[in-house]
């Protein structure tokens, strides 16, 4: 009908900003760069994802390597987010964050302190120690954490700018194994909650946003997909769809059906006539 419009047409990016530590992003998809088959595929995937914030790892300089992920990010205006992947102690993670700050000129860090190679699960004790030390040193700390509401609260209390609970182990593609914990974390959090790790396909990202996450972080789901660029686009839409659904408010779940057509005004018909099949 001409002139009609919904009460709420839904927020555009400008009306629904996603802010971490005072920096606002139009995209709620944070990408990683690990696992991409080439820098060229990575660049096309990042562009298809619409991401504005993307992680890198800090590793020893290799004189034989040509091209740099930093160049890809810089020429596309994507903010770099160094991580501390591979650190098993708070001390290693803090030093790695400081080296990243020196190398990249950013005080943001995606903090990872993992317990072992097999699970790559966060070590909660080391994580909290490192987070506190880095916050005290002026870092904007985004910790990769367990899906533990109490640990999430402690990380926020020591000054983390967001909390990034895992849906399932890194690279597992098992999705969100404990949605209820995500709900508990989101309910109490005063900082953005970002799904980190475990997304395998688009519906996982949508579910995270429906549960109230402020953003989704993923890498393998895109970079190791059969068609990374296609999956990057899928994730972009999945995050946006989940965000809109969260804002819209889903209907309650019911045990039985609830008719959507009105019962009032229904004709009183003889159930036996006309005969079926009609001749």
């Amino acid at each position, binding site marked *: 009908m001409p002139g009609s419009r919904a009460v709420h047409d839904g927020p555009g990016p400008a009306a629904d900003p996603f802010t971490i530590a005072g920096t606002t992003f139009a995209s709620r998809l944070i990408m990683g760069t690990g696992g991409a088959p080439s820098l060229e595929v990575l660049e096309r995937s990042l562009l298809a994802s619409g991401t504005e914030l993307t992680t*890198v*790892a800090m590793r*020893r300089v290799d004189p034989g390597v040509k091209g*740099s992920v930093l160049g890809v990010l810089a020429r596309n205006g994507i903010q*770099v987010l160094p991580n501390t992947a591979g650190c098993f102690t708070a001390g290693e993670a803090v030093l790695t964050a400081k*080296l990243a700050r020196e*190398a*990249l000129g950013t005080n943001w860090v995606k903090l990872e302190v993992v317990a072992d190679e097999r699970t790559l699960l966060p070590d909660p004790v080391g994580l909290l120690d490192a987070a506190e030390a880095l916050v005290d040193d002026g870092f904007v700390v985004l910790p990769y954490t367990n899906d533990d509401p109490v640990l999430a609260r402690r990380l926020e209390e020591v000054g983390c700018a967001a909390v990034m609970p895992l849906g399932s182990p890194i690279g597992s593609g098992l999705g969100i194994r404990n949605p209820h914990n995500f709900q508990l974390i989101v309910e109490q959090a005063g900082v953005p909650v970002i799904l980190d790790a475990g997304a395998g396909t688009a519906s996982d990202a949508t579910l995270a946003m429906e549960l109230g996450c402020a953003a989704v972080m993923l890498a393998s789901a895109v970079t190791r997909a059969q068609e990374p660029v296609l999956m990057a686009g899928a994730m972009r839409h999945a995050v946006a769809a989940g965000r809109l659904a969260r804002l819209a408010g889903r209907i309650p779940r019911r045990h039985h059906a609830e008719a959507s057509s009105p019962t009032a005004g229904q004709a009183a018909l003889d159930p036996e006539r006309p005969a079926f099949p009609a001749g």
Partner: protein
Amino acid sequence: MTATTPVTVSVNGEPRRIPAGLTLDRLVATLTSAPAGVAAALNESVVPRGQWPATPLGEGDRVEVLTAVQGG
């Protein structure tokens, strides 16, 4: 110029013989010519880039030179 006695340092985990007193900027230059995006730690402490020319290396020093790579 007097010859200096070589010393052994560890550079990114590899032992390396260098002239005693070689400064960190000269050492890093042998690994990369990148003007940015690189950081160095000497014996587990960050050395800001501006201090590399004033940081001589000695026997047993451990140097790590890092940059950003695909990850996360």
